[in-house]
């Protein structure tokens, strides 16, 4: 082993941090916070599972974060990594070995102390094909992953339990995103005995180390979390109880919020109510706006004529009137010109993208041999507002001569069409769009723009595969040294600029988060637009009407 890189926690927003975790975490507790109280949060869709290895939905993502903890986490309301269950970590200079020191005395909800064995078990379980985890692919850089994925063996050779409080990960390549991977839900630590006890039903009986524990789950109706009194992070959580009510239409949720029956409408402010809310100063005051690691885009199948011609793709980019589409969704987004959202490291502020220019687009089409345009199909998911946005795009395309018919289908059908090389010429990504799993520029590349995703059943719906860029991406990801983070971001910016030159996508907008809360909710605004805890950071918010 070479010299370990060590570092103290940096305040820098963008830098990778290494660290000896410290009392700083405890310090982070809001001094104004009041202890106790209960809140009610609503969701329309059912919560499928609370198993961190499986849950990958909008609703359960942050619920799982409150029930479980990973080795790493982010500072509340930010994208700044910090150690969580790990007390500190070390990264070998080659960027291929990560060693985590675990916090002592962290207990699962069942009372047992969490150890390094649990960490290994957790990652082994997620990567085991039998678990059918949608997140298994994140762990592809750990040694032995391929054998596990192929079912040849049960456990990753790259994870070593050094002692009960030390766990070592060996990677096959330097991976700058690895600490982020250690912060996503899939790597949140689960106790083996409980998983084995409940088997496939563990998702209905989650046991973790998190700030809350599951108190009640009435299927299809209600999930109740109660405070974990033994939570290792002293002073958290503030709330005693969170009730999630399921199956509530967003519009109903908002009406109930206005009547003071609930505290957070989990699905946000429904478009129909948006203006009413914003027009009322009292209500507007309770709305928190923030960025989101989201981009809505149109994919063009680069293997399919006429989109195999870059000029056509560029023409489409110029044809779409993004301002109009933003207007359609009540200005709750900002027009996008590149794949990365503005709050993502690596976002190229200097990049101007393609202007909305109908004449130029027509000229490009003519150059490409389609002076009269052509006919094509635009797929979109069939939930509001996606059919509407698709229709707006359709009209813009029509203006330059492209006649796109809309296929508005169930999510699963659109995904299937995208994963089929001859399936869908164009897809509007809304509803299935890319919200980053973790705040790192690489997250927007691999599966959706890299060669790895351009396979049958993959998510690279534009079937854009540029070997050069793949190599450059690998190069960028091997820059593990946090000191070179800025350099790495530039590398990524260059990659995305090149992608935009090839224009497999037409980025349309980046959604803004508008979270609304009841008057009694307290805590910093950024807790309500936490980039990773959606809709809110349950662990850190509090209510004002308790003693």
């Amino acid at each position: 082993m070479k010299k370990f890189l060590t570092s103290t926690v940096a305040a820098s927003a963008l830098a990778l941090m290494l660290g000896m975790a410290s009392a700083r975490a405890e310090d982070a507790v809001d001094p104004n916070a009041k202890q106790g109280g209960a809140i009610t949060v609503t969701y329309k869709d059912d919560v499928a599972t609370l198993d961190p290895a499986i849950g990958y939905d909008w609703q359960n993502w942050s619920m799982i974060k409150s029930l479980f903890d990973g080795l790493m986490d982010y500072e509340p309301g930010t994208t700044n990594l910090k150690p969580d269950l790990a007390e500190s970590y070390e990264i070998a200079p080659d960027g291929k070995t990560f060693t985590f020191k675990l916090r002592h005395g962290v207990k699962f909800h069942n009372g047992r102390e969490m150890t390094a064995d649990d960490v290994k078990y957790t990652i082994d379980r997620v990567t085991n094909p039998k678990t059918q985890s949608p997140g298994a692919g994140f762990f592809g850089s750990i040694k032995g992953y391929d054998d596990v994925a192929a079912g040849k063996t049960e456990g990753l050779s790259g994870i070593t339990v050094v002692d009960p409080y030390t766990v070592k990960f060996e990677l096959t390549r330097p991976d700058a995103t690895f600490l982020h991977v250690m912060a996503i839900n899939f790597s949140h630590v689960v106790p083996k005995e409980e998983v084995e006890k409940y088997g496939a039903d563990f998702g209905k009986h989650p046991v973790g180390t998190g700030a809350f524990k599951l108190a009640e789950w009435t299927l299809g109706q209600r999930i109740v979390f109660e405070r974990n009194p033994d939570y290792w992070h002293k002073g958290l959580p503030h709330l005693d109880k969170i009730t999630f009510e399921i199956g509530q239409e967003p519009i109903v949720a908002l009406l109930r919020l206005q009547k003071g029956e609930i505290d957070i409408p989990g699905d946000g402010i429904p478009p129909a109510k948006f203006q009413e809310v914003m027009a009322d100063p009292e209500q507007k005051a309770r709305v928190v706006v923030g960025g989101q690691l989201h981009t809505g885009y149109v994919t063009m199948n680069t293997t399919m004529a006429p989109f195999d011609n870059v000029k056509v793709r560029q023409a489409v980019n110029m044809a779409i009137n993004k301002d109009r589409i933003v207007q359609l969704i009540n200005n709750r987004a900002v027009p996008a010109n590149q794949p990365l959202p503005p709050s993502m490291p690596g976002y190229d502020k200097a990049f101007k993208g393609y202007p909305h220019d109908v004449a130029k687009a027509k000229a490009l089409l003519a150059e490409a041999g389609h002076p009269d345009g052509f006919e094509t199909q635009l797929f979109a998911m069939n939930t509001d507002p996606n059919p509407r946005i698709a229709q707006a795009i359709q009209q813009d395309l029509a203006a330059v001569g492209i006649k796109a018919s809309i296929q508005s289908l169930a999510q699963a059908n659109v995904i299937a069409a995208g994963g089929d090389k001859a399936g869908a010429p164009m897809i509007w990504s809304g509803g299935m769009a890319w919200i980053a799993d973790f705040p790192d520029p690489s997250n927007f590349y691999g599966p959706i723009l890299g060669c790895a995703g351009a396979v049958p059943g993959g998510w690279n719906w534009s079937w854009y595969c540029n070997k050069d860029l793949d190599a450059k991406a690998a190069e960028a990801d091997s820059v593990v040294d946090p000191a070179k983070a800025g350099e790495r971001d530039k590398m990524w910016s260059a990659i995305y600029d090149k992608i935009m030159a090839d224009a497999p996508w037409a980025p349309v907008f980046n959604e803004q988060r508008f979270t609304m809360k009841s008057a009694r909710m307290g805590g910093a605004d950024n807790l309500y637009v936490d980039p990773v805890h959606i809709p809110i950071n349950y662990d850190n918010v509090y209510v004002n009407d308790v003693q």
Partner: protein
Amino acid sequence: MIPYLGRRVMQSLLILLGVSLITFALLYLLPADPVRQIAGRSATPQTVENIRRQLGLDQPFVVQYWHYLMSLLSGDLGRSYIQRSEVTELIVSRLPASLLLMVGAILCELLIGLTMGLIAAVKRGTTTDQTLMVASFVGVSAPQFVVGLLLLYVFAVRLGWFPIGGYGTWRHLVLPSLTMGILGAGWYARMMRSSMIDVLRQDYVRTARAKGLARGAILFRHALPNAILPVVAMIGIDIGIFMGGIVVVESVFGWPGIGQLAWQAIQRVDIPIIMGVTLVSAFAIVLGNLLADIVAPFIDPRIKLR
């Protein structure tokens, strides 16, 4: 009676078998891949294939269906692809809400429909009759989602008499039941009216009048039991309509029943749930028809079950 029941149960099982086969075939033909839903976007093709193999989705249709059928026979509806829970558990947890809604709706439609039909039949040819019949047609012609949204707007949002959706108290039940019931009430009103008019023309009603019975006795003792029979037969058929309506009404009112479960499952090709809900619905329909047939002899002693 016993042989009759035995035969009917056999027939019902055959029908359920047919329903399962057709649904399974439709889902097999679905141009969406459930495995991709499960595997997530970071999955490698190998992971996808692994999962496909584990779920047996790489097998030919016949084999898949056979496996499904075999586990079905042992009472196992399988596990949800997305939710990973037992489908039986998911359905059982949501069934009470749907049943409650169905009971509420049946009460609504019987109460409204039969009353309207009875009054219209007695007052046939009058303005009351015509008004009631137009009203019944409006009920039959109104799309449930429009009715639901309208009731929600007027009684929950504007007047605030009822909660704006949700589940729990009887107050939550009123609007969804009414929404579901209005359609049926229209049919029942029409049916009751024509059935009642028909019965009132029968010789035995004339006999009853010739005996000097009072109007009420004739109407309720002699006419009603005869007129109600086609209505009872209708309740069996009705359950099928309910099962469809439940998808819409539960979604409008956020009612945690199997309709919402089905709708979400269809969106995400969660085949075991779709199969489960379809089978449960078909079972309910078959059971409803069977019950209607079993009840019939108690209303009309001429009917013999054999």
